[in-house]
C-alpha cells in the first residue's frame, strides 16, 4: 500500500512540475533578448485550454493517431517513475531498470513517429525520419553514459548508479548528456522549438496535424521528457548519496534549474545547426560519453 502511495506521490510530482521547465526556458530567452516574455506558467494555461478544445483530425488518420500520443505519454511517465528522485530513491528500483528506462523512451518515440506517419504528409514524414535517425546516435550515447555510471558504481540499478557522482569523468559525462538532452528534446542547436516553418524542424513538424487534447498530451509529454533528462543529468553528476537529504534535495532542485537555464542560454546564444552537422555534434556527444566510460574504467573501484 505504501509503495502504491509512494508511486502516486511521485506521479503527481512529475506531472505537476514538468510544464514548469519550458516556462523557465522561455523566461531566460526573453531576459537575454530584453523582452518581457510569456509568464512562467504559460504552458499550464496552454494545456488546460487545449484540453477543452475540439479536434480536427486528418481524414487519413486511424485511431492510432490519438492512441499514439496517449501510449507515448504513459511510457514517458513510466520512465519518470523509474528515475530516483534525489534522497527519496527510486520508486520501483530493480536490477536492470535503467535499460527499461531507455527502452520506454524508445516506446514513446515509436508512438510519436507512428502518429506522425498517420497523416500521409511529406512534412510529418520528414520529421519522423529525422527523429528516428538521430535517435540512433543519441541512444548509443545514452547507453555509453549508462555504462560509465554502471562501471563507476558497480551496479545496474538506477538508485545506486545515480547515488554517486560520475567520478573523474563527471565533466565529460555532463557535457555528453547535456548534448543528448538537447537532441532528445529537440532544442537548439538540433531543432528549433520556436519556428513554425514546417521544413526546418523535427519535433514540431511531427505534431503539425495534432490538435486539442491529443496535442495537450504531446506537449505535456515533451515537458516531462525534458524534466526527466534534466533530473538524470543532475543526478549523474552530483554525488546525491553522500549528502544529507535536505542538501541533496536542494542540490537537485538547483541543478535542474541550472540545466534549464543552460538550455535557455544555449537557445538564446546559438543558432540552429544545419541538419548535415547534427550527426557530427551527436557523434561528439557519444565520444564524450565514451571517454567518460574509459575514465571510469581506469579510475573506478576496481
Amino acid at each position, binding site marked *: 500500500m505504501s509503495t502504491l502511495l509512494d508511486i502516486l506521490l511521485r506521479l503527481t510530482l512529475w506531472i505537476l512540475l514538468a510544464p514548469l521547465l519550458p516556462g523557465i526556458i522561455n523566461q531566460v530567452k526573453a531576459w537575454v533578448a530584453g523582452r518581457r516574455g510569456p509568464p512562467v506558467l504559460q504552458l499550464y494555461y496552454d494545456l488546460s485550454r487545449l484540453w477543452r478544445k475540439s479536434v480536427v483530425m486528418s481524414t487519413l488518420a486511424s485511431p492510432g493517431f490519438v492512441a499514439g500520443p496517449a501510449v507515448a505519454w504513459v511510457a514517458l511517465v513510466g520512465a519518470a517513475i523509474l528515475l530516483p528522485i534525489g534522497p527519496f530513491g527510486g520508486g520501483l528500483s*530493480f536490477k536492470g531498470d535503467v535499460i527499461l528506462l531507455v527502452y520506454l523512451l524508445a516506446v514513446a518515440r515509436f508512438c510519436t513517429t507512428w502518429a506522425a506517419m498517420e497523416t500521409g504528409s511529406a512534412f510529418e514524414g520528414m520529421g519522423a525520419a529525422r527523429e528516428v*535517425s538521430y535517435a540512433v546516435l543519441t541512444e548509443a550515447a545514452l547507453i555509453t553514459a549508462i555504462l560509465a555510471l554502471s562501471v563507476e558504481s558497480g551496479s545496474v540499478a538506477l538508485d545506486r548508479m545515480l547515488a554517486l557522482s560520475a567520478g573523474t569523468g563527471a565533466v565529460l559525462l555532463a557535457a555528453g548528456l547535456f548534448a543528448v538532452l538537447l537532441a532528445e528534446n529537440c532544442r537548439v542547436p538540433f531543432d528549433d522549438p520556436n519556428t513554425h516553418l514546417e521544413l526546418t524542424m523535427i519535433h514540431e513538424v511531427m505534431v503539425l496535424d495534432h490538435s486539442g487534447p491529443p496535442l495537450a498530451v504531446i506537449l505535456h509529454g515533451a515537458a516531462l521528457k525534458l524534466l526527466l533528462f534534466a533530473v538524470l543529468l543532475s543526478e549523474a553528476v552530483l554525488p546525491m548519496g553522500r549528502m544529507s537529504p535536505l542538501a541533496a534535495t536542494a542540490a537537485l532542485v538547483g541543478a535542474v534549474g541550472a540545466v534549464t537555464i543552460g538550455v535557455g542560454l544555449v537557445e538564446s546564444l546559438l543558432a540552429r545547426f544545419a541538419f548535415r552537422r547534427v550527426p557530427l555534434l551527436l557523434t561528439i556527444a557519444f565520444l564524450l560519453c565514451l571517454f567518460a566510460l574509459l575514465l571510469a574504467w581506469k579510475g573506478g573501484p576496481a
Partner: protein
Amino acid sequence: MGVPVSPVITAGTLLFIAGAGLLLAMVSGRAAPRLWLMGIAVGTGAALAAAVGVLAGWADWDWRSGFEIGGEQLHFRLDAISALFLALLGVVGGLGAVYAQEYWAEERHPRSARAGRLGWAVLVAAIGLVLVSANGLHFLIAWEAFTVASYFLITLDRQRRDVRAAGWLYLGASHVATLCLFAFFAILAVRTGSWELGSMQEQEELAPLFWLALAAFGLKAGMFPLHIWLPSAHANAPSHVSAMLSGVSIKLGIYGLVRFSGWLPVPAAAGWVIALLGVISAVLGVAFALGQHDLKRLLAYHSVENIGIILIGIGFALLAVAQGQAAWGRIALAGGLLHVWNHGLFKSLLFLGAGSVVHAAGTREMSRLGGLWTRMPWTAGLFALGAAAISGLPPLNGFVSEWLVYLGLFDAVESRGTAALAAAFAAVMLAATGALALACFIKVCGVVFLGTPRSAGAVRALEAGQRMRVPMIVLALGCVAIGLAPVLVWPALARAAAAWNPAWGSLGMPPALGALGRIHAAVAILAAVAAAWLWARTRRAGLRRGLTWDCGYAGPTARMQYTAGSFAGTLTEWFAWILRPQRHELRAVATFPERAGFEEHTPEVVLEHVIQPAGGVVLQVANTARRIHHGRVQAYLLYLVAGVVGLGLLVLLGARP
C-alpha cells in the same frame, strides 16, 4: 529432472503420436486437405506437448531401436535444448499450416497447392528429426531432407524466374553447409570411433572441429557475411514458408551451434568470434534492411539482425565458460535462447502479415502500398504489434530477451574481466541496433499501412480471411504473453541452459525478472486505459475530420507522401560504405522541366561484390583447365603415364622415412 506425470503419457509416446500425425499428413497431403490439416495439427500439437513437458521438468527422452538405417541403430533423444527448438517448430508448423489453407489454396494455386501441403509435412517431420537425432549419420540424413524439402517449398511458384533463381541460390548455399557438416560428422566419427552423439567435453583434440560447425550452421542461420541466400529465399518463398524459414529453419543453425558447443570442447577463440559475428550481423543486418524497398526482403534482413542478437548472447556465454564466469554467462545465454523463441514468434507474425498484404494488394513493393489500415485493420494492427515487438519495445517479448542480454553484458562489464570492454562495445552496438530497427519498422508501418494508397492494387486490397487471421492472432498473443509474464518461461530457459553446461548448475531466476513482468503488465494496462480515455475525451471535445495540413496546400496526392527511400535516406547514407546504393538520377534542368526522376537500389553487396567475382574466377580457371579435354587419345595416354609416374614417385618418396 522430475518424473513423467503418468506412465502412459511421456515425451516418447507424444513424439510417436506426432510422427504418426505427420505421416498421415504426408500420405493425405496431395488428395485430402482436411485430413492433411488434421495430421499436421496432431503432429505439431503432440510435438509441442512433448517439448513443453520436457521443458517443464519431465525426464529427458532417450530411445534406441533395434532398427538400423545405414548400419547405425536409430537413436533419438529429447533434452531441454532440443525441446526448446521443438516447441517453436510445433507452434509455427501448426499455425503456418492453418494459414496456408487459405493463403496457398487450391483455387489460387492449382499447380502447387498439393505439392505445398506434402512439402510442409515433410519439412516439419525432417526438422523434428534433426532436433531429436542423437546419431551423426541420421542427423545428416534428416538435415538433407530438411534442406531439400525447404527448397521445394521455396520454389512452389516456380513459373517465376526470380523464384527459381532464389531457390537455386538457396540450394547451392545449403549444400555448402551440408558439405561442411559432412566433413564435421565424418571427422567426428573417425576420431571417436562411433556416429553416436553426446557430451565429449573431455576430448580436447576435437576442439578445432568447431570451425567446421560454425561455417555450416552459420550459413544456415544466415549470419553476416554468410547470409547471401537468405534475403532472396525469404522474399520469393510463399509467406507461410517464409515464416517457417525465418521463424524455425534458420534457428536450426543456432540449434547446431548451441548443441555442439555444449557437447564438444570449443577453441579458446570461439566465444570472441561468435560474439563479433553477432555484433556485425546485428548492425549490418538492420542497415541492409533499411535500404530495402521490398517488404519481405526487408523482413528477411531483420532475420540477420536478430540472429546477430542471439549470437551475441551465445558468444558471451562461451566467453563466460572460457573465463569461469558463470554469473553473467548464464544470463546472456538465457537471453539468447529466449530470443530464439521471441524472434520465432514475432518474425512469423510479421511474415504472415506481409503475406496477407501481398495476398491482398498483389505486390511486395512498399512504394506501391500505403493506407492499408482502412481496408485491412486486423492485419495492420497485428503487424504493428509485431513491429513493436521486434523493435525490442516493452512491454512485449522482444524487450525481455534483449533485456536479459543487456544484463549479461552489463554484468560482464562490471566483472572487469578480459571480456569487459568487448561487452561494453556489444552493449552500445545493441543499443544502436535497437534504434535502427525502430526506424526501419516505423518506415515499414508508415509506408505500408498508413497514409493513402499508392497504387490501384492497394486500393482494392481486402482484409485476410479467418484462417489467415487466426494464426496471426495466436502468434501476437504469444508475443504479449512472454512480455507480460516472463517468469513463466524462465524454468524452460533454466533447463536448456543447464543442459548446455551442466557445470553451471541450476540457474536461479534473476529476481528483477518478476519486477520487469509486473511493470510490463502495469504499463500495458495503463497504456490501454490512457488510449481509451484520450479517445473518449477527443470524441467528447468534438471531433471533425479535415484534409491533412500540408502547409496550406489543399490538394495533397498519394505521390506527395514521404516514401520509404526518403524515410531511410539519412540512415542509409551513414551506411553507404557497405550498402553501396546504386542511384539513378534524372535531374530537372530547364526552366519548365518535362521530367525528373530518382531511383535508388541497394544491391546484395556480399553476393554481388564478393561471391560472384569469386565464382567468376573459379569458372575461368575451370574453363582454362577444360582445354586439356580435347578428345585426342594419344594425349590422354600421356596423361595416364604421367599420372602413374607421379603416383610412383609419391609412393617412393613417401616410403623412404
